[in-house]
């Protein structure tokens, strides 16, 4: 017997053989066979169909109060987009383009040591921080980038002190992070970081032979030895919980990722971000040597994910951060602030970058474009323009209008749309157009592959694997998960 129902909006896509994956505006997912899917869409799905109740429960169809169903989905939608209410919380300061290293894949195309003309002055740093505090977000994270930021100590310290001064009245949740290679670190610097609670984000590409293959000093030679020494010092002075590392996948290490992970475990890190190459700057010049296809990346990623899950099952808590972000989007109703994959794009509205002279850009790639002569994405300047002009101006408005995957051809009907986002600057770099052609691009193909890998795991629903994946999402170690706290009962 056919029961009348109202179809609610959702996306679907072929998943395997005869099976389809469907995802709706709440972010709920469901696996369904083709025949049922066709019947469902044509309004003929019978009550007895095994999917019927789940379709109702998960808000793919409504059989009762339609207004309530809409209200519930809208509530979920709003929750997923919660990051919007934060507006700009990440503020990156490029304090210098100089670097003591010359990593082969570096996208900043750092200048030589003498290029001090591109150093941020303390005045510029302070003015940028003032602009950052104009943001309505209750959370402000100031991230120091370069080149190697420790090479411009005056600007860095001015920025930190200025931010703290402003926060005495602003009362925001203020965080600092420095992205550093660690090889220029001194004891004094570490103490400053400790005293002002500056988090440290560094790069480790694997065991010595892999790390030193790409991450070399400008004057020549590897950096692994120095890195390890400094890491120990950082941990001792600042505390191990304040240091994290990320790695860049290149053709040098793409087939040796287990060794990279082993190195991370050995060095005491509790997680890793398996990052693919960005095709900009130096990286694109060396693309042929460094590069690999996205199919290759996807295969290696799947292998390393299994390797890491296995590590966890054997008792070592270790997370893969990219998977964690995507799994949070798929399995939880919450919003995740991951600027690189947001809809509308995070560039500008969630994170901005301040250049040495106070120019403001929505992303680092936009800053590099400007250096190469294309000022398309210059939002304004902290010395000459108001907050409203910079953050409410036409550059940002255009980016927002053209980066909602919900309305972009190809993306709008993609099954993973609810969990995905866009990178308009990258689209522009690759195609000359902000909207670009995402379908078939490296960015799209990578994200789709990883989503597929994750959904295969979700579909398999192995209890032990799901325990591990959830332990990454909640940050609660497996051992703690399995032991239940005693609670006194609230009885009736």
């Amino acid at each position, binding site marked *: 017997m056919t029961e009348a129902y109202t179809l609610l909006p959702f996306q679907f896509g072929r998943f395997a053989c005869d099976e389809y994956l469907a995802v709706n505006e709440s972010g709920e997912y469901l696996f369904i066979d083709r025949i049922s899917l066709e019947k469902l869409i044509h309004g003929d799905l019978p009550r007895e169909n095994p999917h019927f109740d789940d379709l109702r429960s998960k808000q793919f169809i409504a059989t*009762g109060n339609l207004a*309530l169903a809409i*209200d519930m989905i809208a*509530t979920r939608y709003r929750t997923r987009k919660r990051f919007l209410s934060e507006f700009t919380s990440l503020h990156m300061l490029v304090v210098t383009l100089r670097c003591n290293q010359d990593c082969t894949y570096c996208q900043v195309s750092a200048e030589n040591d003498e290029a001090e003309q591109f150093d941020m002055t303390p005045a510029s740093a302070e003015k940028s921080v003032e602009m950052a505090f104009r943001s309505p977000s209750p959370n402000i994270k100031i991230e120091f980038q370069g080149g190697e930021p420790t090479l411009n100590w005056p600007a860095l310290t001015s920025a930190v002190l200025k931010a703290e001064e402003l926060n005495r009245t602003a009362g925001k949740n203020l965080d600092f992070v420095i992205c550093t290679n660690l090889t220029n670190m001194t004891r004094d610097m570490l103490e400053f970081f400790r005293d002002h609670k500056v988090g440290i984000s560094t790069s480790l590409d694997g065991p010595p032979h892999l790390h030193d293959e790409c991450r070399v000093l400008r004057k020549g030679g590897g950096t692994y030895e120095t890195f390890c020494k400094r890491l120990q010092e950082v941990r001792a002075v600042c505390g191990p919980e304040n240091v994290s590392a990320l790695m860049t996948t290149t053709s040098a290490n793409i087939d040796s990722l287990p060794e990279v992970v082993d190195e991370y475990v050995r060095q005491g890190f509790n997680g890793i971000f398996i990052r693919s190459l960005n095709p900009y700057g130096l990286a694109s010049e060396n693309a042929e040597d460094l590069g690999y296809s996205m199919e290759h990346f996807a295969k290696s990623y799947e292998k390393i994910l299994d390797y890491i899950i296995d590590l966890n099952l054997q008792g070592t808590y270790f997370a893969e951060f990219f998977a964690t972000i995507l799994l949070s989007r798929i399995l939880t109703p919450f919003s995740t602030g991951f600027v690189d994959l947001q809809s509308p794009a995070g560039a500008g509205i969630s994170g901005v970058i301040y250049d040495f002279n106070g120019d403001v850009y929505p992303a680092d790639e936009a800053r590099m474009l400007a250096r190469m002569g294309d000022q398309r994405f210059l939002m304004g300047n902290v010395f000459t323009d108001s907050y409203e002009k910079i953050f409410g101006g036409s550059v940002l408005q255009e980016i927002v209008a053209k980066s909602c995957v919900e309305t972009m051809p190809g993306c709008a009907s993609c099954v993973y749309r609810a969990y995905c986002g866009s990178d308009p600057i990258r689209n522009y770099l690759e195609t000359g157009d902000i909207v670009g052609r995402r379908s078939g691009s490296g960015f799209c193909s990578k994200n789709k592959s990883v989503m597929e890998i994750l959904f295969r795991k979700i579909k398999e629903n192995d209890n032990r694997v799901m325990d591990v994946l959830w332990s990454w999402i909640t940050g*609660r170690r497996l051992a703690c998960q399995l032991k*239940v706290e005693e609670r006194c*009962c609230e*009885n*009736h």
Partner: protein
Amino acid sequence: MKTIKGIATNTSEVIIGKVVIGWSLNRSGKVLVSQKGTSLPFGYRSVISTVAGRAAGNTPRLQISESDRSSLHDGDCISISPNGTLSVLWDTTVETNSLFLTETCDCSCVMCPQSPQGKDEENFLISEELVELLSPSQVKTICITGGEPTLFSIRFLDLMKKIQKKFSKAHVLLLTNGKTFANFEFAREFAGIGFRDLTVCVSLHSDLEETNDLIAGVPGSFYKTVQGLYNLARFRQRVEIRHVVSRLNANRLEQFAHFVYRNFPFAYHIALMGMEMSGMASDNRDQVWTDPYDYRGSLAQAVKFLHRTALHVSIYNIPLCLLFEESRPFARQSISEWKNVFNSRCHDCRVKEVCCGFFETSGQMVSSHVSPILT
């Protein structure tokens, strides 16, 4: 609640009072409990003794057995009705006591352990009196329940304000179907009372609107309960979701768990509960009875899922032998002492001390799989 049968004299209406054992000068609101009675009963609301009261004066009297007399404690609050029934409204020896504001409800759940009642005011008056009689030091945990306690909305809010003010340090539980909270103004006013330590326990029966309303007995319940939950969340109230498992919803335990997590992730605690087979549940047993042993698998999965998400989850009213071992750490001592019994089969059970046992009120309607855990 615990009741005692006695013989009442001079009692023409319901008396409420606080027990005092032994002669006392401070008699306001008190009921004297003594073995011999007293020749000077003036000022007490009633005198309870084990001997027939002397005819002196008009003071109400109640005669009860010796064993019943020794079960009353100093500070207990009781009611005595003209037919000689003594009810213990507040037992000072237990951690949690309940205030029954009313027996009426705007739902009629098929598995409700109470029977449907007509409109009554009496319970509300008794509750108000109880709040007057109790002293703050007596109230550690107070459970506001009914029927549906929020039904007399204005008077309910006034009473809650009194409770918040007088028992400001107490842990307060409100058991409700949540429908009144669908009214935004009501929710706002309730939140404005400013309880320091309050949990609002809302019953939800299914992830499917039609099934929920079938169980609740009133169409539109699902809609109102969901709106109520949203409003409670808007006002940052601590919310617990209670789910009573019956034959009508046992087949969707896991799906329910997913539904709750994804739609009400702000919930502080989820309680998955076995039935008390009395009242409506007993009348409807053919429709609602299901053996918890049969759904222990999906219960285990539901609990495992909720626990993974870092939500607090508990199992109430299901004995340990009817659960998979992995679920047992989540089971709680959930049955009020006065109606908590064990089966003859439980005699040799090693975990009897930590098991919730059974409802005395369920009578013979228990699982056929009850058996002692010997290892």
